[in-house]
């Protein structure tokens, strides 16, 4: 009788511990899924560029910050923004805030986003910024990028690269001439001037990352 009771208690304990462990695991995965919020410190990475060198944020010793853009070859929205991404690099690289483009798609799911195709696209368009391949798809989940194009503006601080803005490039994907608010430009200008960024996050339709 006593033995049964001990067994019963042990079973309850095992179930309790297991449930706790499972709950903990789920909670953990959830916070990973969410990615960064404004104010978080962004992780550095070492990813292969279209010129076959490896690129990390720490390579840019003089940089004041970064415009990290998850983008790709195949997404119609990413294509609509290609020229504007080039304009951002032209405008802000000299001010110490270069564009770092990252293709997060798995070429097995999106053959048009293979490393070879990235090289072709970068050469065709004459990209002036690194166009990196998120091989193994480790970086985009850490940032919490969900679509292309998806922008993360980082400011280099003593304690790391702080996320200052997350969202869209501007408020009109269709027509650059009809843009009313240049979200990224306004955010970088404010960051460089030491002013409050507003808005700090924006939303846009994009292609889901595959």
């Amino acid at each position, binding site marked *: 009788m006593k033995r049964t009771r001990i067994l019963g208690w042990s079973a309850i304990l095992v179930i309790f511990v297991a449930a706790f462990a499972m709950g903990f695991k789920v909670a953990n995965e959830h916070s990973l899924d969410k990615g960064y919020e404004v104010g978080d410190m962004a992780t550095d990475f070492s990813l292969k560029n279209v010129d076959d060198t490896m690129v990390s944020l720490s390579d840019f010793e003089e940089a004041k910050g970064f415009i990290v853009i998850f983008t790709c070859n195949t997404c119609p929205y990413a294509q*609509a923004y290609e020229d504007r991404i080039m304009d951002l690099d032209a405008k802000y690289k000299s001010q110490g805030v270069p564009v770092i483009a990252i293709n997060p798609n798995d070429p097995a799911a999106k*053959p048009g986003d293979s490393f070879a195709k990235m090289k072709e696209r970068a050469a065709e368009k004459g990209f002036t910024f690194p166009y990196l391949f998120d091989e193994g798809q480790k970086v985009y989940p850490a940032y919490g990028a969900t679509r292309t194009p998806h922008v993360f503006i980082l400011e280099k601080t003593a304690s790391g690269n702080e996320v200052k803005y997350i969202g869209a490039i501007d*408020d009109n994907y269709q027509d650059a001439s009809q843009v009313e608010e240049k979200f990224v430009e306004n955010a970088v200008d404010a960051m460089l001037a030491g002013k409050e960024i507003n808005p700090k996050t924006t939303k*846009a339709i994009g292609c889901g990352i595959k």
Partner: protein
Amino acid sequence: MNRLIVLVLVILVGACAEKKKESQEADGEVNEVSTEKTANADVKFPVYDFESFEPLLHKDDGATYVINFWATWCKPCIEEMPHFERINAEQKENNVKVILVSLDMPNMWKSRLEPYVENKDIQSEVVILDDPKQNDWIPKVSEEWGGGIPATLIYNKEKRTFYERGFTYEELNEALHQFIK
């Protein structure tokens, strides 16, 4: 009895063949998008900006609305399309209305959207939402929406739920049955 088995088999094989076809076609990637707008004057579907579209999200007529945001270039959207079509056909008597809201770009309306709807013989209502001010209207559909598609809003008088995800038929059916008793 034997006939029944044969019929079930035929349906199953048919469904598999159809599925294979779908996924092959969805593999077609968009390699280049012209920024030129083709003449869209005679596009077959109603074109809304968000202001004129918004009433579709707040109808109070007793029906349950399944509002699916999609585009022809969005592979997971195309994959789940048959489930929405099936729900639309099966749930008519439960007063369920499926509205497929295309976010295709204007230069794709004639070249991709119309041929897709015609070739697949889509029966659900198709409308076009053409409003580039996405940061303004995405939160008005749902505060939870980050902007990814596929995304689906199910609502009726009593209840509304937003899903930024794709569905299997079973998942969609289950979600819908929280709205229809």
